[in-house]
């Protein structure tokens, strides 16, 4: 095997944009200040693709989203960047009501091939609005696929999958992983959406985590090595959710902890727990613990580190189910 280049996650995303825009004329990006760039993921693209395909809009999320939504009906394949993922709320109505149901309600005649993206995650100490992971808000509503990568490899492959998908796909990425480096093949490749990944094998407990929390899960697995054998599953997609991979792991471990950087209420952690107790009741040897943001807006200041999921909280939950 030839040696594989390492790239930061944010550059892996950019490479996906670049290669897909080279491959397919109908792909374009729309957002605010993406030509200049806010995060590095769009920097420099305008030089190659021009302002016809790297489209900056006024400060108006409905119009910005609409550029993508309408163009997708006309045969384009837009990527719409909300800068901070939470800003999607300014276009929540066309996203959660119109986009999600558009195909289905109109008799499944049309498709809306588009990617909805934005950065998020605790770490900037600015509080809820900038940190919000919006995956659960979108995954609640059927009709839009939702995913978040944990590694640069997955970031590139999932973004390419998202761009090529004929469905609307919300692809969020965590600022706490932005500069994480990892091997990324140069040629285009696809990491299929809706497929979880067993990122670390183990036999005592199944630990589900992704994005920045995937790193925290790894820290905990290291800490517990020799004592408790932790299997780490990265769901990668939230919708569709690959519950089979989790159930399979539970056949071995019988114990489950789910980390979700979101409020506990109606989270992916809750959804996984509900599906497992429905379909895998007999596999369970212990309660399922969820490690999430408690039901409060994430505060900024010096409170982020202990309010958001963190290694100590994850470790406590793992120990708890393994008692």
């Amino acid at each position, binding site marked *: 095997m030839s040696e594989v280049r390492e790239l930061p996650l944010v550059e892996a995303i950019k490479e996906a944009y670049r290669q897909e825009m080279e491959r397919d004329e109908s792909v374009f990006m729309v957002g605010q200040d993406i030509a200049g760039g806010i995060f590095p993921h769009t920097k420099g693209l305008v030089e190659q693709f021009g302002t016809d395909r790297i489209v900056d809009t006024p400060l*108006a999320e409905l119009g910005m989203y*609409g550029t993508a*939504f*309408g163009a997708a009906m006309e045969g384009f394949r837009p990527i719409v960047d909300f800068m901070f993922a939470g800003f999607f709320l300014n276009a929540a109505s066309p996203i959660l009501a119109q986009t999600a149901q558009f195909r289905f*309600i109109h008799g499944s005649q049309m498709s809306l091939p588009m990617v909805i993206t934005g950065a998020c995650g605790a770490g900037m100490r600015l509080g809820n609005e900038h940190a919000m992971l919006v995956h659960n808000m979108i995954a609640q509503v059927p009709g839009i696929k939702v995913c978040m990568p944990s590694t640069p490899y997955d970031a590139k492959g999932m973004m390419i999958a998202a761009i090529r998908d004929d469905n609307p796909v919300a692809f969020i990425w965590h600022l706490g992983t932005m500069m994480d480096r990892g091997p990324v093949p140069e040629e285009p490749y696809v990491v299929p959406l809706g497929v979880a990944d067993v990122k670390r094998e183990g036999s005592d407990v199944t630990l589900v985590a992704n994005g920045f929390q995937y790193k925290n899960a790894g820290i905990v697995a290291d800490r517990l090595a020799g004592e408790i054998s932790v299997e780490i599953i990265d769901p990668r997609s939230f919708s569709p959710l690959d519950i089979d991979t989790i159930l399979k792991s539970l056949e071995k471990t019988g114990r489950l902890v789910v980390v979700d950087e979101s409020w506990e209420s109606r989270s992916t952690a809750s959804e996984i727990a509900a599906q497992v107790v429905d379909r895998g009741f007999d596999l369970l040897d212990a309660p399922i613990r969820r490690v999430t943001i408690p039901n409060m807006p994430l505060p900024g200041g010096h409170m982020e580190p202990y309010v958001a999921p963190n290694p100590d909280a994850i470790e406590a939950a793992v120990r708890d189910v393994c008692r």
Partner: protein
Amino acid sequence: MALGKEQMKLLYRNLVRADHFDKMMMNRIMQGKLIGFYHPGDGAMAAGVGASTFLGDDDILNPHHRAHGLGYAAGRGVDIGRYLAEHTGKVDGCCGGRSSFHWSFPEKKMYGASGFIGWHFCPVVGWGWASKRKGNQMVLMASGDGSYGQGGAHEAMLFAMNWKLPIVFFCENNGMAIHSTISDMHPMPDISSLAQGYGMPAVVIDGQDVFAVAETVMAARKHALAGKGPTFVEAKTLRLREHDVGTPDLARAEPREAAYLEELKKRDPVVLATSRVLAEKVLTQKQIDKIYKDAKAEVEQVEKFADDSPVAQPSIEELLAGVYVA
């Protein structure tokens, strides 16, 4: 842009057809033969017919919600049988019977509908953007005076003017939004005053005059296709009946006055158009009678088609398979 005789004939025919379709829907909802609700277009079918009859095949057409877009459907040559079958939940409905009033004919570039009034101000930006990129098509964006309350209307007009998008904002101003009167809801006499904020050209016309509407919209379309950007066309029209069939007809909390409604009836667009085609010898009374006969026959055929179509009740599995593209 003066209309030729053949154009006037076509407009007249479509107006009569649209009027028949609207009456068909009113009858059916009262007979319990329609799903959900119906928002009658009675007395106000000219605007949609005039705005849609001469669009190009590649133009994108977003119909107004009133009369569930029937004026536009008639102008566009949509299959009204499949339209009605959709409104009655039948397998031959244009959306397989699952949409109720959210009808759509993508092949006619009428992409769909929503129960959220003003929703279209979002995709219209992309429709306009794509049309500009393609170069030979434009967007006719129809909606009511009420819809211009939505913030999305501002964003759409801003983007359209900023990027000089080929869009005609076509507003059917009937002075009402459910029980609200426009004078209570908008500080200026015309909705199109909003266009001034963006330097967008605006025209106010009589929406009861199907010929005037067609002329104005075609001029605005030419402007759009020439790369000169959007136009706001405000067609003043009226609402003869209640907002949706069977609900009270109020202005704020008071019943609208019968005398006032009688006044409105004098502006019936079919009557106006008939006098004109007769006066200008575009059509003879005999030809008009034929148009009426044909329209009646079309309604019968449409109803038979929809009524004969089986009820759509696909399985949960079939439905689930329709959520995502595989």
